[in-house]
């Protein structure tokens, strides 16, 4: 068929040959400029250019454009060509316009007019040209100008097939670019019937159009399901000779089959049993054909066949309803995993990712774990390896996490640079998600830093610190491990950051071993100091000041370092300031003040992983919780964005420092009891008060999450409260020590997991246990089930208290009609006045909302308010009743006194109603430190050297109520042999002693 050759334009051929013969780029540009000048002058001067010449010049311009040169003229000539009656001139005109003219060109009005003329004409070949142009440009202006003509062409009876085909795709393009300018009308109801058209080309084009319409409005086009199924069935079950020209290498109409299978993926499995059966038969036939011997050895045959097969498998996975088909699909993919065609292995890995999220098939997919790991290690193509990583991530669960993470870590050492960052994120997410043993988690993350430190984003190491702080069972291990890791001669800066932070907090836990004694730890950290960036050095300086608190014996060494010119006179203002202020802090404060200021970080409230949260921010739509597959796609965050994000978060140490200034200037005054171990990455969102809980790991750049340290984002004084009033610096009430937390962990393990069930007392299951946990602490998780997590944080000053409740929606759906009601049983309302801030009616999927309560203590009370939370989840009413953790002891402020005063007052409170005594059986082995921590948590002081027996505890405090202040004295006598305590409480007001005694009793 020698159709095209030999009828070209001579001038064009000569020009192209010239260009090709150019020896250099400059020569080429020169030749092109000459030609452009020539064409320009021809277009300008010679009014008598005939169609042939115009066509030739336009062709030359197209060629020049393809070589990468801008064409800024010739547009008008091209538009003129549109109105020619000659087909070839019209054709080149349209080509020039659709390649070169953007939608916003001034000439568009003329073009649209020409198009309208051609559409109105009777010549189908002209109509097709006009439609092509519309489809390729698809501007809003076109949509508005031609919105009536095109749908008419599509459904009209006397349009020929090829025009119908083009009209369908043109309409699709216009619907995409400006959906609102196409009037809906009668054509819509007729459009699905195009699936029955005789002409397969029309059906293919129509299927694309219908799929687009369906995506917007599935209900309206529901009828297409049965039509598509029957069409598919006719194609699949026919022998390939029936479709003649639409058979491609022995495969019947592969493109149409693919389109129809895609279309069906927009709907759930068909409801009509007949249609459903027919569809199942089709899918089975397609799966069966895959097992038949190939009808041709050509790759085209297997490609076309497998294109249909993969789409069928995707539909099976989408419907996720027929276990038989799912098993077959999984087996088929398993075969492809080992196929010699790389393309098929690639696609099999991709489809298996989908399959891994199906509840029926997750287990079946796991059978292929070995193969996938082999693929990860042996595939030559990085695209395929990347898919293997995705699949491993998707198929990971608690049972195989350790192995998969291990393999991924191993591979990371040799992985392509392009996928390292993503792999690091995935490993970090998996390790956290499936960690049973958090020592393993710590190992994994430290390994990550060791192997691929450069690719470990801030989020990853923030997160490990968050977790170590919150889980006291790993703190010792973490300290030991980072200590060992830091001993490597060269370690990554991220390792130094993690090491500095963890040793600063928990270095004391390993200091017992002389090999990792305080001085050794300090020397080790300091040996890295000079190799680090200023940000890391700042963090290390904070770690040093923490060391001064942990290890008073090396105070002088650290002070020397702080005093050195290298720090005190550092060019970096931040480092200079830290050095000076830390030095001052360590020199002028008493050990008690220092201990309070540099106290261990309080736990972070439980919340979702900062890494995942970040992913969600990036692609909110694509990361619904619980969908691992979606996480996979979302986690592909370019490194650049990651680091940008970090840059956004400025160090807050300025705020911190302003506090330190005060400290220095009022050297005699009681120091502020807030000091932050702020190490640079802390956010500045809420002003200085944030620094209380400081180092808000993971939320570094976002301010939409209400930081727990500064619920009001405001005054520091609110937060100061939390750590104990300035007059009683030794008795912090917030920062629950590690021992306390350990205790909490113990009790929460023994208590039944919280459920949706409501017990007889009207409270939700676990509510009572959860409530008790809060008697000695202020922050934590009050309730958790599959839908909701409720966290609490509170602060008290004298007779006033504030409590924030955080409602976290754990589902992927919005919780509607969210209502919180607080009731006060009995006459509690007389004793405790509660103000409740309103909470919004909805909680978005994965979101957290907070609610504030203000509670003033009027007089002593024994009951706790009951909080009832109601909401609609998937239309079902849910109700949770909990005790709001407000207890009398929260309103106590610790008091210090010497032995004399104590005993004088003790004796003064001698009436029976002022005393309450109980003998309590210990629930856990008696541990002096643990009990001490409990008492501090209970908001009373622990007075040393008052009781002659050092084993006994005596405590004092003042209970503030609106009406009066009540003195509280407490004595606790443990008996280790009998595992018993004797608890005596005396209070200057009747009934108070009894209430406090009852409360304290639950904690021992």
């Amino acid at each position: 068929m020698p159709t095209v050759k030999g009828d070209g334009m001579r001038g064009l051929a000569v020009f192209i040959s010239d260009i090709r013969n150019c020896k250099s780029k400059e020569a080429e540009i020169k030749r092109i400029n000459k030609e452009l000048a020539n064409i320009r002058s021809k277009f300008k001067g010679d009014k008598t250019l005939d169609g042939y010449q115009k066509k030739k010049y336009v062709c030359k311009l197209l060629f020049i454009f393809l070589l990468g040169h801008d064409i800024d003229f010739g547009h008008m000539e091209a538009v003129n060509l549109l109105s020619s009656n000659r087909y070839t001139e019209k054709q080149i005109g349209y080509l020039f316009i659709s390649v070169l003219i953007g939608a916003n060109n001034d000439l568009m009005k003329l073009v649209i007019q020409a198009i309208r003329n051609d559409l109105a004409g009777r010549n189908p070949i002209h109509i097709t040209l006009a439609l092509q142009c519309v489809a390729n440009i698809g501007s809003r202006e076109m949509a508005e100008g031609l919105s009536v003509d095109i749908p008419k062409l599509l459904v009209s009876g006397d349009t020929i097939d090829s025009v119908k085909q083009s009209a369908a795709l043109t309409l699709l393009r216009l619907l995409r670019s400006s959906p609102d300018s196409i009037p809906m009308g009668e054509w819509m109801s007729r459009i699905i019937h195009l699936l029955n058209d005789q002409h397969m080309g029309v059906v293919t084009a129509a299927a694309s159009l219908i799929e687009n319409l369906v995506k917007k409005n599935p209900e309206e086009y529901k009828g297409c399901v049965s039509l598509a199924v029957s069409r598919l069935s006719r194609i699949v079950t026919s022998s390939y000779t029936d479709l003649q020209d639409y058979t491609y290498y022995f495969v019947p109409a592969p493109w149409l089959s693919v389109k129809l299978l895609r279309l069906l993926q927009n709907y759930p499995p068909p409801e009509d049993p007949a249609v459903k059966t027919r569809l199942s038969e089709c899918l089975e036939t397609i799966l069966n054909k895959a097992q038949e011997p190939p009808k041709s050895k050509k790759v085209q045959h297997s490609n076309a066949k497998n294109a249909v097969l993969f789409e069928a498998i995707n539909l099976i996975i989408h419907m996720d309803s027929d276990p038989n088909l799912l098993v077959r699909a999984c087996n088929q993919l398993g075969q492809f995993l080992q196929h010699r065609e790389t393309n098929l292995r690639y696609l099999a890995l991709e489809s298996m990712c989908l399959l891994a999220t199906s509840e029926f098939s997750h287990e079946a997919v796991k059978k292929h774990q070995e193969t996938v790991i082999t693929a990860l290690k042996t595939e030559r193509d990085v695209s395929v390896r990347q898919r293997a990583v995705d699949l491993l991530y998707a198929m990971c669960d608690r049972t195989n996490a350790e192995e998969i993470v291990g393999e991924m870590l191993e591979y990371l050492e040799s992985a392509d640079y392009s996928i390292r960052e993503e792999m690091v994120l995935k490993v970090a997410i998996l390790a956290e998600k499936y960690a049973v043993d958090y020592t393993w988690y710590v190992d994994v993350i430290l390994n990550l830093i060791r192997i691929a430190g450069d690719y470990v984003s801030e989020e990853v190491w923030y997160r490990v610190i968050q977790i170590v702080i919150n889980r006291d069972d790993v703190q010792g291990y973490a300290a030991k491990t980072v200590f060992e890791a830091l001993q490597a001669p060269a370690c990554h800066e991220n390792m130094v950051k993690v090491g500095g932070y963890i040793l600063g907090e928990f270095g004391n836990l390993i200091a017992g071993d002389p090999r990792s004694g305080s001085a050794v730890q300090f020397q080790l950290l300091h040996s890295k100091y000079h190799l680090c960036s200023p940000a890391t050095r700042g963090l290390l300086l904070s770690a040093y000041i923490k060391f001064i608190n942990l290890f008073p014996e090396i105070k002088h060494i650290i002070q020397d370092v702080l005093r050195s010119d290298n720090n005190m006179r550092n060019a970096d203002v931040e480092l200079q300031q830290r050095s000076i202020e830390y030095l001052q802090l360590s020199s002028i404060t008493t050990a008690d003040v220092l201990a309070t200021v540099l106290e261990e970080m309080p736990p972070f409230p439980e919340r979702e992983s900062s890494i995942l949260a970040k992913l969600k921010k990036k692609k909110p739509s694509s990361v619904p919780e619980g969908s691992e597959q979606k996480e996979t796609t979302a986690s592909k965050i370019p490194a650049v964005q990651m680091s940008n994000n970090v840059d956004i978060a400025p160090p807050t140490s300025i705020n911190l420092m302003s506090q330190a200034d005060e400290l220095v200037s009022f050297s005699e005054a009681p120091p502020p009891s807030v000091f932050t171990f702020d190490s640079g990455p802390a956010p500045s969102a809420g002003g200085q008060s944030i620094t209380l809980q400081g180092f808000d790991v993971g939320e570094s750049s976002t301010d939409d999450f209400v930081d727990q340290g500064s619920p009001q984002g405001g005054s520091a004084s609110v937060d100061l409260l939390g750590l104990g009033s300035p007059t009683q610096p030794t008795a912090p009430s917030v920062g629950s020590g590690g021992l306390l937390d350990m205790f909490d962990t113990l009790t929460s393990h023994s208590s039944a997991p919280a459920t949706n069930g409501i017990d007889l007392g009207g409270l939700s299951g676990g509510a009572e246990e959860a409530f008790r946990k809060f008697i000695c602490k202020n922050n934590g998780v009050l309730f958790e089930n599959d839908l909701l997590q409720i966290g609490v944080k509170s602060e008290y000053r004298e007779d006033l208290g504030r409590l924030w409740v955080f409602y976290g929606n754990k589902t992927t759906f919005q919780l509607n009609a969210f209502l919180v009601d607080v009731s006060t049983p009995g006459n509690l309302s007389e004793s405790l006045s509660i103000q409740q801030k309103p909470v919004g009616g909805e909680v978005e999927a994965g979101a957290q909302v907070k609610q504030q309560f203000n509670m003033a203590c009027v007089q002593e009370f024994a009951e706790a308010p009951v909080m009832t939370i109601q909401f609609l989840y998937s239309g079902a009413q849910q109700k949770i009743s909990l005790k709001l953790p407000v207890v009398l002891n929260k309103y106590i402020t610790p008091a210090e006194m010497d032995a004399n005063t104590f005993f004088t007052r003790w004796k003064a409170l001698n009436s029976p109603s002022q005393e309450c005594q109980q003998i309590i059986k210990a629930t856990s082995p008696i541990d002096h430190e643990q009990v001490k921590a409990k008492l501090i948590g209970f908001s009373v002081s622990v007075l040393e050297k008052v009781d002659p027996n050092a084993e006994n505890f005596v405590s004092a405090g003042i209970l503030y109520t609106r009406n009066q202040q009540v003195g509280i004295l407490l004595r606790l006598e443990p008996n280790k042999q009998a595992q018993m305590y004797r608890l005596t409480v005396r209070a200057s007001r009747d009934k108070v002693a009894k209430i406090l005694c009852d409360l304290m009793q639950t904690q021992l």
Partner: protein
Amino acid sequence: MIKAILVFNNHGKPRLSRFYQYYPEDMQQQIVRETFHLVSKRDDNVCNFLEGGTLIGGSDFKIIYRHYATLYFVFCVDSSESELGILDLIQVFVETLDKCFENVCELDLIFHVDKVHYILAELVMGGMVLETNMTEIITRIEEQNKLEKSEAGIAAAPARAVSALKEMNIPQKVKDMKLPDLPSIGNLKF
């Protein structure tokens, strides 16, 4: 949807570029270069799919390509397209070119940019697959060629008129005129 169809040679010289989504001219050139860079460094027997470059839209897009002798045929598509389907479509495109140009080679693409566009326009329209049946596509191309020939005939008419006037020996012409042979009656079937 197909976002772009690019053809370039082993040195990255563009031979065809067709964008179905608007990108400014310089962006188009950059996309061609980036895509060439991504594709050319791959071995011939690795898989035919990879994630799109950042310019065209990153990992939401796939590059599906085939390498024939001196030319790369590259389709940039979004996730709504079947990879193997597009791979076959490339094959159909190339086979069609092969039929139209008789053993198509790079030179045909260079000298007949317009024709290549017309052929492509019969396969893909506005980023969607229009027709896959090669017989149908070739029929349509042939129709266009016929039209072109007939128009070349009309365009040449004035020139022929002039030359006719120059040769005024009309009687001789008439004499030379031959009537077409009538089909022999014996061949006719009733």
